[in-house]
């Protein structure tokens, strides 16, 4: 079947099998490998993208379900020369190490900040509870989000994660 979606502001069409996931559509057909294939069952959040502004696990949607909808991936936020403020602050604060979780973390953070520009630390933790990081830990990620939302980020406490 042909699936047409608006991805990162551009209309794109691909011909895929019915059982293709949104994640596979993005990565394998549309050359957008930013969203990652991690657990493939909706636990790790590495494949998080926005569909009509709402964060979802791209591994848990079929490509057919996003027909005519608006999808934003990490590639839609910024590029090397013009980083999105969230990308820039993650870099400044050394918020990621291997980087595998970072696209999902940043997309989840964007979904949070779009709705709630000044979240509390608790709200950030709640908003990121569907995104797993296995190397850096969460402290620096939370600090980055506090920082970019114009809040002091000195006391993120990893113990209460």
């Amino acid at each position, binding site marked *: *079947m042909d699936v047409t979606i608006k991805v990162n502001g551009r209309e794109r069409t691909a011909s895929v*099998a*019915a*059982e*293709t*996931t949104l994640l*596979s559509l993005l990565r394998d057909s549309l050359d957008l490998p930013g969203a990652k*294939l*991690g*657990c*493939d*069952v*909706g*636990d*790790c*959040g590495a494949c*998080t993208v926005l569909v009509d502004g*709402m*964060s*979802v*696990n791209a*591994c*848990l*949607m*079929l490509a*057919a*379900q996003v027909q005519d909808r608006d999808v934003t991936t990490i590639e839609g936020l910024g590029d090397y020369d013009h980083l999105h403020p969230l990308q820039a602050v993650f870099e400044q604060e050394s918020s990621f190490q291997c980087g595998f979780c970072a696209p999902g973390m940043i997309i*989840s953070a964007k*979904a949070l900040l779009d709705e709630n520009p000044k979240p509390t630390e608790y709200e950030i933790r*709640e*908003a990121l*509870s*569907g*995104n797993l990081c296995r190397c850096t830990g969460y402290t620096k990620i939370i600090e980055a989000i506090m920082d970019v939302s114009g809040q002091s980020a000195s006391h993120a406490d990893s113990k209460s994660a």
Partner: protein
Amino acid sequence: MPRFGMFPAAFGLFDRGSTLKPFEYLAPDTVDEAVAILTDNAPDARLLAGGTDYLVELKHASEVPKVVVDVSGISEFKGIELTDKGLRFGSGVTHTEIMESDLVAEHALAMQEAALTIGAVQTRNLGTLGGNLVTCVPSVDSGPVLIALDAAVTITGSKGIRIMPLLDFFVGPRKTALEPDELLVDIVIPKEMLGRGCSFRKFGLRKGQALALVNTCASIDLDAGKLADVRIALGAVAPTVIRAVKAEKLLNGKAPSDDLFAEAGDMAATEAKPINDFRASAGYRLDLIRTGTKRVLAEALERAPR
């Protein structure tokens, strides 16, 4: 498909990109179309709503159905509204929509407490109330509150519409009263249950992405200072959600007190049949029932209109 924590990720190392097997995808716009598709293809058609459980199940299934029927675009399954019967949830309402609904906050706050414990933001944005109920795992998080508030479900199929208490809809683990050609249309909390004192508590190993070890919910009325029509629902401690009817009976007609609530918690534990598994022992689950029941009763009392 039960969510075995991070195990699928470990398997994934050896089974990279083992995704979905071929099926036909249909996305009807109306309930009637969906019923027709199910009738024509039963039992080789299955419904897809939010997909947070079912797509996971399909990825791990050795056989997939011929037809997957996506019901997420059916408008009759949308919306939360107050009707002359009570508070109606379309089966396709997402957990996020429940959490953000002013109507739910006003009339059935415990539904929001339960929704918040489900999965994480991404899964709550996709996952639906109907899907949660139809999947019908013993730990179903939406079940206890709806049963403590005496909810009824509307089912439609080729033979017409039927309405039944949610308690009867849950038949066993992963087994509901739905026939292969039937769909869950809506869930209604009856008018007389709205606004009563009700509290929900889930015990999991952590807050995010956790299955319940024990779910507890209580709803109460007060009649001249005495407890009336108490309903206690327990989840993850028996094949389906159960009501602790002996504990309810113990409470009805008595003046509330901490001692009485503790006694009810002990009684509720005698009514459950929890299992030992890798998440918790049966003994620990019994302790959680005692503690949880006591706490939700106390909180339901605080919230009860006087």
